[in-house]
């Protein structure tokens, strides 16, 4: 088959092949040649729309080098910030009269094992009561060097949230007053929310048939 007249194939890494998550036995569904690639990294360009341009205007002059990319997706704006500059950016977001994001809704970790060099993400949701706006700040760090500066000094509410993210993902928040586990026991090994941490579970017998543990069941993803 000639490929000259076809559009260029996407370069993104393969997310899955086939349709039904069949891995060991043969796929007889007819979808076995299906290749689904990961969605490319999003990056939006101006104008962002809504109030996002005003927020970016107030943030970018001082921190043009700190912001890696801006993503506007599904009516929400995400600023991807370099981890070294995070406390300054947060301080500015909180204190600048045009921004005034007084309320932080905490930290949420996400583990993307396939993003080499930026496996661990910390996601901050901020809310401005003055302007009634929301933004999301996302920071990433490599798995080999899981350090992100702590923002407890700026938002004291991050105390427990950073402990939780450390507990579940192993991200070390440098400068946190007492970074200890919060949900798991102190001597627990591993960080349970990471993708390489197994869910566990045992097979269950139901009416004579064996139902495998949840993480051993067929996945359609």
């Amino acid at each position: 088959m000639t490929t000259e007249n076809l559009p260029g194939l996407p370069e993104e890494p393969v997310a899955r092949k086939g349709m039904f998550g069949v891995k060991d036995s043969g796929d007889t569904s007819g979808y076995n040649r299906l290749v689904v690639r990961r969605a490319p990294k999003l990056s939006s360009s101006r104008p962002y729309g809504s109030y996002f341009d005003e927020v970016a205007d107030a943030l970018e002059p001082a921190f043009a080098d700190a912001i890696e990319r801006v993503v506007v997706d599904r009516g929400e704006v995400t600023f991807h910030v370099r981890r070294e500059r995070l406390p300054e950016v947060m301080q500015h977001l909180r204190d600048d009269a045009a921004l005034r994001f007084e309320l932080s809704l905490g930290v949420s970790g996400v583990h993307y094992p396939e993003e080499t060099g930026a496996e661990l993400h910390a996601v901050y949701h901020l809310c401005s009561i003055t302007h009634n706006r929301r933004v999301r700040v996302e920071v990433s760090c490599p798995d080999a060097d899981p350090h992100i500066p702590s923002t407890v000094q700026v938002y004291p509410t991050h105390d427990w949230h950073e402990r939780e993210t450390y507990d579940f993902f192993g991200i070390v928040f440098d400068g946190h007053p007492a970074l200890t586990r919060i949900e798991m026991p102190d001597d627990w090994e591993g960080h349970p929310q990471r993708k390489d941490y197994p869910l566990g579970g045992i097979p269950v017998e139901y009416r004579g048939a064996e139902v495998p543990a949840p993480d051993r069941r067929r996945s359609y993803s």
Partner: protein
Amino acid sequence: MSTTETATETQGRIYDVAGQDWDELVKTVSESADERLVVNMGPQHPSTHGVLRLVLTLDGETVTEARTVIGYLHTGIEKNMEYRTWTQGVTFVTRMDYLAPIFNETAYCMGVEKLLGITDRIPDRAQAIRVLTMELTRISSHLVAIATYGLELGATTPMLFGFREREMVLDLMEYITGLRMNMAYVRPGGVSVDLPAGAVDKIGEFLKIMPGRIKEMRKLLDANPVYTRRTKDVAYLDLTGCMALGVTGPMLRAAGLPWDLRKSQPYCGYETYDFDVPTQNTCDVYGRYLVRMAEMEESLKIIEQALDRLSGPLKGGPVMIEDKKIGWPSQLALGPDGLGNSPDHIAHIMGSSMEALIHHFKLVTEGFRVPAGQAYASVESPRGELGAHVVSDGGTRPYRVHFRDPSFTNLQAVPATCEGGMVADVISAVASIDPVMGGVDR
């Protein structure tokens, strides 16, 4: 052989929270000369709202340090959801904050709907039912908050009143959803089943009884000298403290800021309902009590309006999105053996349409795919802003779901509200935060 060794051999490694730095703490305290007393309160204590553990350092009767230990109810709900379909996730999130399950479900479903881009296509009737059930749940949750306040301060009548009234709400929820708690009623795309026949009348009756009951409670507590002396000027936390600690909900509104997501960032059509946001300026436990009482009265107003719409203009409308690729294929119906798939639907897929059977099977076992991306959806739960950070990688299962639970964040205010006060006031401070440990630990 010692007992621990035997236990280790038979059960594998045992994890507990004894030892480690707690031993050091006890050692340091015993060595110091001053008369400090470290009191461990909980995790099994009737006035710590479930399994909250407080470590209090006392100087006489004054609390000099209050430390909170959580994690005793951590069940890994967020991790478990990553191994289930998007729809199955509802049955997990409903168990987080178990006193306000509908709020967890709605926040999660709003997040999924945002990712799917179908927020505008949710039927109005489904949105009105969500509002109705959320406000009913708000009343039952506030009733428990006030009931336990009373009980923990030594008054049993508010407890009996509160739980009696809550029972009415739970009966209504059982009538509507089939379950008293953990209903998994709100689903991505709408709600699982329409209001049953007679529900409007039953809620109407409840609306007739409830204002009188709230008045009774107010009569009992509003100016009760014992109650006010235990609650006024106790556990002071002003607006600055609330903002810094990320405290939202009745605590924030008792500090004078009328911040309510239902008004400021409306969802589910709250902008079309007429209600007020009650506030107080006292920043204390009594103010939080007054805010909760007034919020119940406002909820009754919203329920009345929602009921008018459901029995009027929205009567007979769909309660699930009319998109066959997302909406649950069957409707639930009450049969002789309880709630289940409607007999009509079973007859259709088993008797007349092979395609409908395949469709049903695929949607139920496989689930629907959600485009890759992330979304944050938040609702005003009885305890404050409940946010769901939902991440998808394009598959049929959530890639990551994180709940910003208000109880978790608000509990950080324990040292700020308790230190420097009397040890007896710790009880009312924690009660006024109204933490639900299922939501804190998840």
